[in-house]
């Protein structure tokens, strides 16, 4: 099988976007396993990665169903090239140090949690079912990353500096999380309106940063493009690694 591109209806696009978010983030977190600062974190980051991978699989399976061309979760994950990936730029950023990984997880979980909680009431039954499971998982991701951010911010001088640097570095990718969703999907109650999630995100960020004694960076120019396939450089490398076997042995079953 060579590279595939999908004719994306608004629903297919929206489902793919969430699936790609989960897969790309799971991939990054899985890179820590065996290399984390302590054994407990090897396990915890591995758990979060597994949750996200599970969410990605449910969403890809649904995307394939929405497309209706008999494709599988693996076709969608392994046979699309970077410009067809719809994930947020934030989630493809390299792990950096532990502070960057935690900040990335926190900033995204703080919006993903209200996203899934709202989507539990989706008019789309499949999305509502996925949301019911994901909501519980992401609640833990949010709690875990917030606790770490507080420890790092209010820990040592060095950990404080690293946590603040990570926030300053990744903040430019947060605007994209609130970019408008397809108006019709929102109107029909399929997916939450991203703008409606913002007040809760702001409040969570404010509360955790205050406890972590960290400063909220200024909302400057925001990097966008992930949802339309205009990515940062690291994504191509990630996919080259992730997709290599499927590409090298087309059509094989694993």
């Amino acid at each position, binding site marked *: 099988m060579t590279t595939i591109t999908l004719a994306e209806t608004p629903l297919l696009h929206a489902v793919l976007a969430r699936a790609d978010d989960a*897969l790309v983030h799971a*991939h990054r977190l*899985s*890179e820590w*396993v*065996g*290399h*984390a*600062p*302590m*054994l*407990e*974190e*090897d*396990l915890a980051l*591995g*758990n979060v*990665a*597994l949750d996200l*991978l*599970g969410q*990605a*699989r449910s969403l*890809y399976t649904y995307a394939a169903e929405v497309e209706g061309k008999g494709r599988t*979760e*693996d076709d969608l*994950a*392994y046979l699309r090239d970077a410009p067809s990936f719809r994930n947020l730029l934030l989630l493809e950023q390299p792990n950096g*140090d*532990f502070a960057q990984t935690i900040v990335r997880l926190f900033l995204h979980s703080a919006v993903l949690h209200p996203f899934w909680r709202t989507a539990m009431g989706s008019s789309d039954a499949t999305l509502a079912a996925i949301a019911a499971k994901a909501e519980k998982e992401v609640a833990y991701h949010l709690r875990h990353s917030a606790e770490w951010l*507080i*420890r*790092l911010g*209010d*820990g*040592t001088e*060095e*950990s404080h500096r*690293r946590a603040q640097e990570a926030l300053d570095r990744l903040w430019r990718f947060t605007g994209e999380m609130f970019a408008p969703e397809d108006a019709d999907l929102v109107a029909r109650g399929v997916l939450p309106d991203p703008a409606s999630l913002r007040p809760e995100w702001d409040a969570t960020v404010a509360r955790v940063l205050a406890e972590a004694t960290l400063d909220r960076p200024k909302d400057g120019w925001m990097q966008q493009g992930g949802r339309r396939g205009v990515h940062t450089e690291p994504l191509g490398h*990630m996919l080259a*690694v*992730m997709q*290599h*076997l*499927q590409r090298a*042995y087309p059509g*094989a*079953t*694993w």
Partner: protein
Amino acid sequence: MYTQALNQKDSGPQGTQGLVEDPERLARFEARVAAEDKIEPNDWMPEAYRRTLTRQISQHAHSEIVGMLPEGNWITRAPSLRRKAALLAKVQDEGGHGLYLYAAAETLGTSREQLVEQLLSGKAKYSSIFNYPTLTWADIGAIGWLVDGAAIMNQIPLCRTSFGPYARAMIRICKEESFHQRQGYEIMLTLCRGTEQQKAMAQDALNRWWWPSLMMFGPPDAESSHTDQSMRWKIKRFTNDALRQQFVDATVPQGHYLGLTFPDPALRFNEETKHWEFGEIDWEEFRQVLAGNGPCNRERMEARRRAHDEGAWVREAALAHAAKRKARRAATPKLAAE
């Protein structure tokens, strides 16, 4: 398994060599062990028993942790989402095994920090098997099938080992290891039912992992020190050679079912003994790998040290934060009372 440590000479810590145990307590201890009583952390035990077990359990823990590396090498490249999830969960299980085992070792009086320090300084050993590289996806199948398979052979008897915390940890761990073994075999089966290239990949993995897997059981009985005492204390229940033979007998038919050939021209079934006879193991290779000259010894230790060093600031932050919280909690009621 990762019980290769049992074959190292027990020189004892400085000053305890030649320590003579109270004969009466020793006799009572030996009688309890002989009666299959479990020894618990607060029970009296001979120093040599404590030392041998600490070494064995911590070596087992280190093996689980270092063992995360060769398989972790393929998490980002797993060829399907189902395989990726299974591999990630497997590597995570191994980390969990490391955690339980460190906890079991700690009950004998050595802290996890000290044990990890022994690993990072090169003083403590881990299983030789994890010094081999994972070069293709088939290696993930071969490791599950052979390495977890060999670990199970070794560890099932340890579920009845005399030291309670270790025996209990083993019961839980063995369940997961047999799941890993089936999963690995299933990867091999899928490859062998796949394309010619996939089958060749599976064969190549068997060629590279077969002999190192046999070495996991440690040196031949004739060269193995301390087996007698470990057997009497029920730390060990079968000899290296007996377990190795059991593994070969179980594994060879599985390999044949896959349609693979074992890289041993001397392999033959003995109709009289009903055992598979196998060729001479290259013990020089085994000694070299244990001495640090395996293909990946340096890389494995470097990876562990790097994770430890680069994570130091995180662990310090967690400690500093916990101390601040504690201080604040201690200060709050006092302020309220004033």
